């Protein structure tokens, strides 16, 4: 089976809108949280999100939006996009440039695109509201493709004239990790030569606030304390949006095009908890199984793993489950990998999380560092027994695992390897 490599990436995240800024944020543990103006109402107890800087998407009309001057996006494309589509479009443009792809490289039967976003609750709300107000036949003809789950793939496939495999993935916070895993399969099976994997979320009030009802959001008002994975004082996750795109290519294409990859994608695994619709398995059984399967598929022994970028979102139950899963997979205390959750810096990107954090792993592998677990003051004793990094280490990780878990107890683990 062909080897598969990450050859390009693009980032629009709360900790930076390009690879250089994101790398610096990861190294220096700079978070992207701000007090979010739409939350500053007495009836909204949540105050902080990971904000996307230099973008303004707080209008249902894309022609009102603002984005950095370097991007040119025609109205024809913009009109069918949700905010997450705009973020992803910009991330895709970065990834295409980063991977040095030409138009013929992108638009052919051997190049596909898998995407993950939750759609746009914001625009769905807006368009349904208009439907009720002005009547069915006066609704925007583009409201559907701009707002339903799938909007991300619809838009990107059309915008980049993708002709290979395309699909949207919907497993909540594991979505884009699933997308990456299945993209890897398509490449390994010879179905495709190149895959874009994209995750994006609006990260606005409508996308984030509904999680408050589940009591999963942090109520912290101080942006510096809001996201604290594995910390005893953590009180929930901090929402964020953005868009991230990865370019995966087979070895043959890497050689043909003469590009330097970030990392090799060795394999992946997935397993489900079979437990609860929203609560992770207390022992992290699905997550542990996913990691074990991923390692097996990659031909890697647990002790070879240098770093695990945890799913840990800073929720009470989830972080403990994952810590237990990690303990069960990496039993030899002396050989345990470094663990950190970069959600301490970015917040939880929901569908975006898996591919965003995979991009972080790619940057860490290429730049030779392991990002620390920020905002960890007092370790939750329940999360003890794993090697949580408190500060960034300047050692290049060779083998890295990326964990993602979603509603329904869906768990994905991806394995990346440094290119020698």
């Amino acid at each position, binding site marked *: 089976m062909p080897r598969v490599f990450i050859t390009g990436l693009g980032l629009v995240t709360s900790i930076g809108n390009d690879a250089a800024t994101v790398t610096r944020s990861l190294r220096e543990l700079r978070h992207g949280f701000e007090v979010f103006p739409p939350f500053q109402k007495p009836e909204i107890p949540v105050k902080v999100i990971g904000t996307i800087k230099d973008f303004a998407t707080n209008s249902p009309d894309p022609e009102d939006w603002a984005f950095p001057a370097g991007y040119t996006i*025609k*109205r*024809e494309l913009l*009109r069918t996009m949700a905010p997450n589509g705009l973020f992803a479009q910009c991330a895709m443009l970065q990834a295409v440039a980063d991977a040095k792809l030409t138009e013929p490289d992108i638009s052919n039967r051997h190049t596909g695109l898998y995407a993950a976003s939750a759609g746009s609750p914001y625009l769905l709300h807006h368009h349904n509201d208009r439907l009720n107000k*002005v009547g069915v*036949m*006066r*609704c*925007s*003809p583009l409201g559907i493709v701009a707002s339903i789950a799938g909007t991300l793939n619809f838009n990107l496939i059309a915008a980049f004239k993708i002709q290979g495999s395309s699909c949207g993935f919907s497993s909540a916070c594991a979505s884009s990790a699933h997308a990456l895993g299945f993209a890897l399969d398509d490449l390994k099976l010879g179905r495709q030569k190149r895959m874009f994997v994209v995750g994006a979320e609006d990260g606005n009030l409508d996308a984030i606030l509904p999680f408050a009802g589940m009591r999963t959001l942090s109520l912290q008002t101080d942006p510096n304390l809001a996201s604290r994975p594995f910390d005893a004082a953590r009180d929930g996750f901090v929402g964020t949006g953005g868009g991230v795109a990865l370019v995966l290519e087979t070895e043959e294409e890497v050689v043909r095009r003469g590009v330097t990859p970030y990392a090799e994608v060795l394999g992946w695994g997935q397993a489900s908890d079979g437990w609860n619709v929203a609560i992770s398995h207390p022992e992290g059984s699905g997550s542990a199984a996913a990691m074990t399967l991923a390692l097996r598929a990659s031909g890697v022994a647990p002790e070879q793993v240098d770093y695990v970028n945890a799913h840990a979102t800073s929720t009470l139950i989830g972080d403990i489950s994952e810590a237990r899963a990690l303990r069960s997979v990496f039993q030899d205390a002396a050989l345990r990998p470094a663990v950190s959750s970069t959600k301490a810096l970015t917040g939880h990107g929901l569908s975006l999380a898996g591919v965003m954090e995979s991009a972080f792993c790619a940057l860490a592998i290429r730049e030779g560092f392991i990002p620390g677990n920020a905002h960890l003051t007092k370790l939750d004793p329940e999360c003890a027994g794993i090697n949580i990094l408190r500060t960034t280490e300047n050692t290049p990780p060779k083998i890295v695992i990326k964990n993602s878990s979603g509603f329904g107890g869906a768990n994905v683990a991806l394995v990346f390897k440094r290119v020698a």
Partner: protein
Amino acid sequence: MPDAVLSNQGTNKPIPLTNKPFSPEDETALREALKRCSPSAFESAVQFRKTGNAEHVPAVVIGIIERFVEPDLRIKLKDADDDLRLIEDLGIDSLTMMEIVILVEDVLQMTINNDELRNLRTVGDVKTFIDCKIRGLALPKPTKFIPIEHIGAVMPVQPPFLFLNEASVSSTAANGKYRITGQEFFLQGHFKDNPVMPASIMLEALGQLAVLYLLEGAPTEAGKVVSPQSIFFTGCEGVRAHRICKPGDILSLSIKPKRMKMPLATFEGAIRVGQEKAVIAEEITLTFLMVDAANAPVSINGAFEHAGNLSGSAAAPATGVPPLRVAMNATG
């Protein structure tokens, strides 16, 4: 279509201008709706909403179309030629068309049905359509493509004197094509060892397109149709030939009505070969009569009178062949 009747679709009643006056709130909403359109489009919309005067409508419609056209193509709308095509020239796809329609509906307070939209292909189509809606006139007939079989069936003129291979007709124009095969009987003598399409025949071809327009495109009073047997050539002005046309050339013919008042219809016409001008006719005038649709002959009884036939040659005997047969013969 019982559904259409029930839902009042397809009817074209004048827009009932609301009795309540145009309020400052209406103006604010209108300004918001047209915020990305030119100030003149907004002003025209205000005038229309205040007075109901349909003269303001084209400026509103053009302003709205312009707003949805990519900036680099907007220049084309500056000297808005009615023949400017929405899809081919302005890059407007069917989704953008829906956006335009919804904004037009909102701004002009009217309702446009889906099936009315399909036929709008040019800026002129849109302007005419909206104008008819506003004034409560019968909707113009859509541009329709007429294949050779149908041309043969409806035209009073028949092979070997029919010089149209295909045509499309709307309420404002007709376009057609004719390929000079070299087998035309008159080319044997015109000229000796040098077949050249006679200019008089090219004018004849334009006249035939005008006949087709009268039969298939011209707006008529309700319950009336143009009688095929009533159409004859009366005169032409400003006819110039610019290019020698020979076998193998494809003549692209176009005519547009300039004036039409029974019994006279005057057209301007042009023939091109590719991009080259071949013939210009400033005016071609035909006579015609309208008859009750009920009394109109169901079929055309052969090629008795060659309407639009400049040659004025002796009429061929009526054959009584049913039109379909004629059409089939026409295509060989």
